[in-house]
């Protein structure tokens, strides 16, 4: 048995012993539920686990130790912007005044939070060069849906029902085409140009009276600024369509490029990328959406407004009839937005500019140092991330990007995003962010250099990597063919292992 094996613990359900735990809640009167009709009651109580608090604590602390995280090491996961998450932001979101505020608290009782939300909207509008911002969307993907639903409402309000298509480059995040479908549009995928940018001619050919919007990620998902953006935006608007910017990569350009000023009509922002809110193991994030003048009437309802006397209020029902409506319950992921607000105030204008400059500098440094170790397909300065490729290495040694990524785990690093974008063979999308030291970046380069050497000497070592992690490569086929999605062993109806 290895040390790692010892660390894999039983589930909550296996740890449970009847009679353990308790002491958290006072006992109710015996007849508390007597007035509930028998037919409306649950038959048998839920078989939740019973653990003492010390066992529970160890369960979760030991599970946490099986995770790799920004707080434990370098996490260059391209397009995810895994930067450091400031601790004061966690403190702020937990302040009782923020955390205990009920979402139906009347405006007069909620002035602190309303002011924060209003100021955050203003700051994000300034950063994005947008006219107005909604903070309601719960995540980037929901921001996309919000934006594309506004595009739909805009065209329909003008009596234009013929625009049924959304153009998306083939390098786009999968959320873009999925969003277009959810909003009722047909996705038209446009191949990218050889330099990794959008193919203007292909876009021109596809644009027309059926185009509702074009969704562009800028900087692109290969980490390049779309150098022919002006031409593209002109062509989009000439065709009567709107330009959507996927703001996932905003961390590269703060203070140097404002999408709204440049002519984008709508953009979502991932605060869990650019504004340092934690990724939470897969959420919660928040996906505010900025819009230009022409889309303001369609913003989700309700907005936060500032009155002439300096107080704040939420829009009343029916106050803005052209709104696309609600995207979710209540105001938004306010606890996440408090963190984003704190991040922006800590940095100010100059700090945010420095964030982008340092993110781009670190990416270019890493790219320079890795040229010659791996293929680096696009030979121009990158933005905050860049694509490398193991295509040559694979041809020479049979070692794939997947193997390389898994071997990085043995060297103490989280692998980059792999096999994305789909347009680059054996792709690794590497995003160092601005919060990693030179020593860390250099150590990452040395690890990759060593791994490439290993690939030539002992490819099997890489095919079977990782070797030091709590578990090794997983049987994903069985997981999908015979799904075991919840614990049934407490009733004895199922073996805990899938074999």
């Amino acid at each position, binding site marked *: 048995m290895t040390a790692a094996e010892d660390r894999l613990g039983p589930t909550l359900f296996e740890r449970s012993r009847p009679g353990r735990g308790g002491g958290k809640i006072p006992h109710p009167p015996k007849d508390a539920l007597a007035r509930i009709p028998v037919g409306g009651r649950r038959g048998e109580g839920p078989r939740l686990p019973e653990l003492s608090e010390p066992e529970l604590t160890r369960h979760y602390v030991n599970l946490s130790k099986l995770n790799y995280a920004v707080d434990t090491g370098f996490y260059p996961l391209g397009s995810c912007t895994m930067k450091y998450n400031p601790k004061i932001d966690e403190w702020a979101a937990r302040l009782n005044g923020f955390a205990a505020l009920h979402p139906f608290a009347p405006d007069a009782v909620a002035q602190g939070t309303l002011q924060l939300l209003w100021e955050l909207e203003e700051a994000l509008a300034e950063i994005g060069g947008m006219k107005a911002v909604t903070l309601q969307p719960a995540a980037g993907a929901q921001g996309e849906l919000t934006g594309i639903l506004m595009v739909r409402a805009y065209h329909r309000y003008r009596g234009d029902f013929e625009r049924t298509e959304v153009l998306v480059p083939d390098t786009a995040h999968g959320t873009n085409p999925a969003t277009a479908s959810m909003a*009722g549009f047909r996705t038209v995928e446009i191949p990218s140009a050889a330099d990794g940018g959008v193919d203007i001619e292909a876009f021109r050919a596809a644009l027309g009276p059926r185009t509702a919007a074009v969704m562009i990620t800028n900087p692109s998902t290969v980490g390049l600024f779309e150098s022919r953006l002006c031409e593209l935006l002109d062509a989009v608007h000439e065709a009567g369509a709107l330009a959507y910017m996927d703001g996932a990569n905003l961390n590269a350009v703060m203070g140097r490029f404002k999408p709204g000023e440049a002519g984008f009509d709508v953009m979502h922002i991932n605060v869990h990328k650019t504004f340092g809110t934690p990724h939470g193991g897969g959420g919660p994030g928040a996906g505010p959406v900025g819009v230009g003048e022409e889309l303001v009437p369609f913003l989700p309802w309700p907005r936060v407004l500032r009155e002439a006397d300096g107080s704040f209020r939420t829009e009343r029902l029916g106050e803005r009839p052209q709104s696309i409506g609600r995207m979710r319950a209540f105001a938004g992921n306010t606890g996440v937005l408090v963190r984003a607000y704190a991040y922006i105030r*800590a*940095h100010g204008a100059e700090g945010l500019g420095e964030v982008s400059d340092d993110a781009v500098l670190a990416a270019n440094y890493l790219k320079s140092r890795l040229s010659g170790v791996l293929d680096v397909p696009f030979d121009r300065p990158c933005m905050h991330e860049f694509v490398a490729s193991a295509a040559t290495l694979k041809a020479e040694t049979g070692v794939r990007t997947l193997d390389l990524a898994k071997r990085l785990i043995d060297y103490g690093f989280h692998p980059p995003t792999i096999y994305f974008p789909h347009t680059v063979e054996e792709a690794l999308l590497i995003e160092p962010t601005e919060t990693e030291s030179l020593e860390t970046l250099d150590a990452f380069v040395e690890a990759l250099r060593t791994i490439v050497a290993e690939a030539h000497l002992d490819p099997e070592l890489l095919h079977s990597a990782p070797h030091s992690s709590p578990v090794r490569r997983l049987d994903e086929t069985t997981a999908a063919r015979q799904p075991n999605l919840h614990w049934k062993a407490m009733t004895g109806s199922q073996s805990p292992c899938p074999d």
Partner: protein
Amino acid sequence: MAYGPHTTQDRARMLTTIGLDSVDDLFADIPASLRSSGLNLPPPESEAELSARLRALADRNRVELVSFLGAGAYRHFTPAVVDQLLLRGEFYTAYTPYQPEISQGTLQTIYEYQSLMAELTGLDVVSASHYDGATATAEGALMSCRAARRERVLVGRGVHPHYRQTICTYFAGASLVADEIPFVADGPAAGTTDLVALQRMLADPAHPVAGVVVANPSFLGLLEPMAEIGRLAHTAGALFVSVVEPVSLAVLATPGEYGADIAAGDGQPLGLPLSYGGPYLGILACREALVRQIPGRLVGMTADVDGRRAFVMTLRAREQDIRREKASSNICTNQALCALAAAIYLAAIGPHGLRDVAALGAARAAQLEAALAAVGVRRLHQGPYLNEFAISVPRAAAVHARLVERGILAGLPLADVIPDDPSLAEALLVCATEVTTPEEIAVFAAALGEELAGGTR
């Protein structure tokens, strides 16, 4: 910069390695005409200044009021262990477990969350989480349309108004139809779903129904005839989507028991702070037969190459990053940390604790009903409730505002959120939970009695 490590020398060294003179050169690809003028934002603040600013903002919110507000977001006691464990950076600074070998912590906690929710709902499949109760309900309604290959759902008027509005937004995009099932107007069942109307709506052969969406307890706090609604839905070939409140499932019949195909709800009552609306936790569950229709991440148990038990994201072919425009939803990031909070809460409080939370809330609500009746304030409806109910209060909005001045949040004026229903025009929705004290109830009842006795003022 506040959190960056780079010194002037570091930057110079990086530029030398790159072979450029200035950071500006790295941005040469941005066309000159598109370069922005810089940011007009306040200057940076030290952590000391920032913490004072944040505290001052937080203090402007009046959270000390005696509160009887519920309406989809509930005050509960959260054991201290929940937040202590959530502060583990290994949990909250990780991302989606794309590399399962170094994400077993997140993966096992999601699997355990799915298992706990399966136990609470009585359904087999639970997604790793959705954004909130409203979006989970909208996704559940969309799911019923995909599964039944029909384009119309019926949504009970007792579903939270924000959830109904969210369904409308999502359905407009997909060009699907969501019709509303009315309330029973009067009598003992007033305020619950009108079964006669439901049956009539289900019988329209020109517009077959994919799903029937009903909440239990309803937004008005009432218990609905779920088994009967499910039977009617199934007879018409529709799926039954139940909207649930998770604490209540410790004591109320489960979606599995009354035959729901899909359950949706908000997990906020399971240890998550109110935080003015989020982040909360969208619960979405379904029967096993619908597993390929459910949107969002799923974690399954498997083994590694050495045969050791391990967990991994599975059935990924439903998802946007693989399936692109044909995915079951565009959802990507969800609310994993909120699901973790709910799981820790349930494990900390245990089966008896959860039942006690539900039962104590019910007991306090009954005390509240009695105390209000003693000052002449009656319930608006007659049907059974768990811990939330509507009361008739003349000039409800004005009385509510005056009680805020007296330090009491007297629930929610129903006309604020359901303005088109005359029967709810003069009513407040009030709620009690295990944290509501007898003293608070006495203060509220006395103040409300005085306001009403004081007349129009």
